[in-house]
């Protein structure tokens, strides 16, 4: 496993920011996850926030001497440890790309000069990696979007993007876990729940997991929505 040159910075009174080189890649993500697991095993923290090339460690108390904490972290990073790799799951997310949901699909098809079917294929044939969860509870930052589908955010964001909207923003794609404002191009809708406080695990996916989208019909969307509402739909990872 490559060891990167990391930067450690004190961040306010009770946090330390660790940064990797400025790149979005699976290799950096693997290294971040490996280090995060070691940190979890050895240090008690209030919160750990992962970014594309960073980990923000939020301590439970005010840090008196950040240099001490940083020395400990640096040693920990270099420690050869049989990392008990946490199992990464692969989740298949049903998405209905019908124009009823995919309100920007036709516009995108014109811009890209390819049919809506081709766009759907490009979007659903890719294996995406979950980099981290941010923006909204349960919003997954996914890496791996096919470059043909890169598409700038809308100049004026929509005030109401519906819950479950599957969208493309810049070089990213994602699913809005709840109704929110947003400027991404909407191409479909997923009936499943990405964030549910009633569940023991409110968000099924985690950093490092894999995601693929599966195209479903309007009817299937309706059926799954009903099952989700009746608490009869359970997400199962494929291995």
């Amino acid at each position, binding site marked *: 496993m490559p060891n990167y040159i990391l930067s450690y910075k004190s961040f306010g009174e009770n946090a330390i920011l660790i940064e990797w080189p400025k790149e979005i890649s699976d290799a950096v993500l693997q290294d971040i996850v490996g280090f995060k697991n070691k940190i979890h095993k050895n240090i008690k923290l209030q919160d750990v926030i992962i970014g594309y090339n960073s980990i923000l460690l939020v301590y439970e108390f005010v840090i008196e001497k950040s240099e001490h904490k940083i020395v400990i972290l640096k040693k920990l990073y270099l420690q050869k440890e049989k990392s008990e790799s946490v199992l990464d799951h692969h989740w298949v997310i049903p998405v209905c790309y019908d124009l009823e949901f995919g309100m920007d699909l036709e516009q995108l098809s014109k811009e890209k000069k390819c049919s809506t079917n081709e766009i759907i294929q490009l979007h659903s044939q890719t294996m995406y990696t979950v980099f981290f969860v941010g923006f909204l509870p349960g*919003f997954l930052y996914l890496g791996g979007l096919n470059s043909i589908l890169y598409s700038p955010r809308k100049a004026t964001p929509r005030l109401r993007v519906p819950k479950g909207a599957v969208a493309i923003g810049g070089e990213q794609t994602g699913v809005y876990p709840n109704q929110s404002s947003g400027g991404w191009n909407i191409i479909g809708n997923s009936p499943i729940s990405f964030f549910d406080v009633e569940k023991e695990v409110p968000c099924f996916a985690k950093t490092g997991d894999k995601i693929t989208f599966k195209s479903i019909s309007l009817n299937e969307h309706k059926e799954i929505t009903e099952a989700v509402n009746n608490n009869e739909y359970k997400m199962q990872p494929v291995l």
Partner: protein
Amino acid sequence: MITVLNQGIYCSIQDLGRKGFANIGVPISGVMDATSAKLGNQLLNNDLNEAVLEIAFGGVELQFDEDTIVCLTGADFSPKINGIRIEMNAVIKIKKSQTITFGKRNYGVRTYLSVFGGIQAKEILSSKSFYKEISEGIILQKGDAVPCKTLKGQTKQTYSKIKVDERHFSTNGIRCFKGPEFELLTKTQQAQLFGAEFIISNDNNRVGYQLNEPIENTLKPILTSGVLPGTVQLTPSGKLIILMRDCQVTGGYPRVLQVSEESINRLSQKTTHDKILFVLK
């Protein structure tokens, strides 16, 4: 029970926040001015994390359906029980069917109402704090009934009262540390941050405070990375946003400063048109 007769402008239930769920994108939330909220719980001998009502800009009318003791801390909006002025920062007895109202603003923005034993709201993800999509409510509304405990038997007379440091409300100094992207700023830009006062824009709420005066901005966006309450972001327009308790857990704008915890509390008592001055710790 406390019945909401008038909901005022923005009244919510808050404790010290929802910690430990940032990895699934859940904001910390919690009381904006933790200094004032903790003081109320302290005077009532409550656990410091007990939930309180955070009342921004007064205006609420609350009817008590129990005999209990309460304490009002933070902003002074001339509180009254059944029309009679009561003291701030003091333990106050209140009887069944009496109402608390607020009037003229004397200082501050956010008042905290703590009650004996704490507000008994549903705990979701280890916190009673209101937040959209997580708690059942976002703000308390007219007709809502908020559960609280009855003070039984010992109605021992209590005279607990404390004088608060008025600088908590009056100072314009906001103490801060350098943020992760501070060193990317030019010397001129750095000097702009500390050289003059900034005015709080009317875009200020529990998520963040935007400041009116832009500074020169030549920085590119960063790769999305963690942010915290108190993080000062430099937006593409050059305007600064100070993130507050309900902020997202990640962001893509350069983080030029990090406001100290105590100064987040002080800032929470300021609003539109108030002036602040960043002071480097």
